[in-house]
């Protein structure tokens, strides 16, 4: 049953470029990119309870790294470019993660917010590398002899990378590291008492989260083809937070669902820019008041109801207060 659903879903995703108009292929790529960011953010916020308002900053670091590497050394395979974006962003995440160890809750949220602003200012000021406000054109991604120059080719690139990242995140929860992170979410003190090195794992969570966002940034650069600093403002970070809140904290499929819903919504509201924040804000408030746990936990509840089980106890979704 589960396998069948997976197979149908995979076939649908693979055949999508032949069924959908070109623009929707582009949109699907964007959904996958945002989903990777949402998964990365969820590894930090959902797993270790550290809220970040700076992920647009990580996305920018990844995107600019990829664009600069691809421009300076043409012909480098896209895998190498994405690896460079991932490593640079993870290093930045590590650098930010170490001082952020001392912070929690509001302070952490504000420090990451500040990080996002500083990244945009840095892009503006390093105009030798980033061309500042003029923006940076990104060459086509190269895979050996091929240039991935069409929307369809880029879609498959994004899809493959996205699938790998999703699979890795899904399995992370079953590794020693993943269990340590989940333990941290429930109670730092209890985790520490069980021999989990709190500082090490919290920093690691920051680095992994940044790594995911860096890869997404690299893909974003190729999908969009043009980078300018105003694309990475704080409101983008808020959008990412909205994705994981709507999708469900701590859930990988939830992150993907939240990213898909909000990316499509964002796109359909393109003609109504004035209403966009209104609707996003209302979604944030409504999911917190009426659907805590997001889409993921709503689906879980529906499934148990259909299966004829008595309703579950209110799910423990996050750390105890």
């Amino acid at each position, binding site marked *: 049953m589960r396998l069948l659903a997976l197979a149908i879903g995979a076939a649908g995703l693979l055949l999508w470029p032949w069924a959908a108009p070109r623009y929707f292929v582009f949109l699907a790529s964007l959904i996958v990119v945002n989903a990777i960011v949402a998964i990365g953010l969820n590894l930090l916020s959902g797993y270790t*309870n550290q*809220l970040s308002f700076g992920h647009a900053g990580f996305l920018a670091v990844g995107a600019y790294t990829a664009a600069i590497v691809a421009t300076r050394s043409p012909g480098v395979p896209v895998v190498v470019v994405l690896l460079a974006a991932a490593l640079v962003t993870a290093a930045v995440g590590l650098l930010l993660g170490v*001082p952020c160890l*001392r*912070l929690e*809750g*509001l*302070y952490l*949220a*504000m*420090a990451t*917010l*500040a*990080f996002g*602003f*500083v990244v945009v*200012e840095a892009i*503006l*000021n390093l105009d030798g590398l980033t061309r500042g406000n003029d923006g940076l054109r990104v060459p086509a991604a190269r895979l050996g002899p091929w240039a991935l120059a069409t929307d369809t080719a880029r879609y498959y690139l994004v899809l493959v990378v996205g699938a790998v990242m999703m699979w890795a995140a899904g399995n992370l929860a079953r590794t020693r590291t993943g269990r340590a992170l989940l333990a941290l979410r429930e*109670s730092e*003190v*209890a985790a520490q008492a069980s021999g989990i090195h709190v500082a090490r794992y919290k920093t690691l969570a920051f680095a992994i989260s940044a790594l995911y966002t860096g890869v997404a940034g690299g893909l974003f650069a190729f999908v969009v083809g043009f980078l300018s600093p105003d694309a990475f403002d704080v409101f983008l970070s*808020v959008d990412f*937070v909205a994705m994981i*809140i709507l999708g469900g904290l701590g859930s990988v499929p939830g992150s993907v669902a939240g990213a898909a819903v909000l990316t499509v919504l964002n796109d359909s509201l393109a003609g109504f820019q*004035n*209403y*966009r*924040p*209104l609707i*996003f*804000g*209302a*979604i*944030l*408030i409504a999911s*917190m*008041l009426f659907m*805590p746990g997001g889409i993921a936990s709503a689906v879980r509840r529906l499934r148990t109801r259909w299966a004829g089980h008595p309703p579950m106890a209110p799910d423990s979704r*996050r*750390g105890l*207060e």
Partner: protein
Amino acid sequence: MTSAALVHVVVSGLATGSIYALVALSLVIVYNATRTLNFAQGEMLMVSTFAGFTVYAHVKLPLVVVMLIAVAAAALLGWVIERVIIRHAIAATHFDVLIITLGLSLVLRSAAGLAWTHDEFPFPSFFGTRPIVLGPVRVAPVSLGIIGASLALMLGLWALFTGTRLGRAMRAVAQNQRAARLVGISVERVYAASWILASVVGAIAGVLIAPVVFLSSQMGLVAINGFIAAVLGGFGSMPGAVVGGMLLGVIENLAPLYLPSSIKHSVPFLVLIAILLVRPGGMLGRVARRKV
């Protein structure tokens, strides 16, 4: 740089700082009562100021009346938000309420844009434009006015918190909610009072700063600097909020004189990151020890 010019820069820094201090105070008032950060504080300030401005645009009332209207609108807004949204999340975690106020800030900013457009409007000022000359020193009257009005308001708040029953109840709730309830304080009423009071303080800050920065839907962003001011002083401490606000205002005004101008916009954030690294509890704050 002459010392007279330096005085001018410091005074205008203190004026900006007073506004930061007021915003920081309103954040701290809500935080002390409910232990949550109100992300929508800046937007509430902006909406209240717009309410006063709308009346002024139709009927040219004296400015004091305009300010009173803004204050009334702020009180109503604070009360409605607390009763309709925040009260329902009373059992939720701080994280959840933070997200709710974040959503609220998006909604309010967007709604203000729809109601009043995203343009900038000139706002009438209480104070003249002719500089006050004291020997070699020239100071803008608006700076002195903002500083004076803010100090008066802070004195009023101090009197409220030390001298009145409500103020003592609010301090009791800030210290220990359960104990406050045990001695007969209605915690719910203190929540509502805190939201209203914070909203009112914000509205006054909004009316004071609007003539300087223009009135627009983006005005709420001042709350970010207000937050940094509160952290600088030690989040949760009211004297800390005042000192932090003044200090941030002066630093922000002095920094461009000594540092490359390109990092001007980053100054408050660099201050924030620095203070969080060196002394996360702020200048006058204590780092709370969390119990298991």
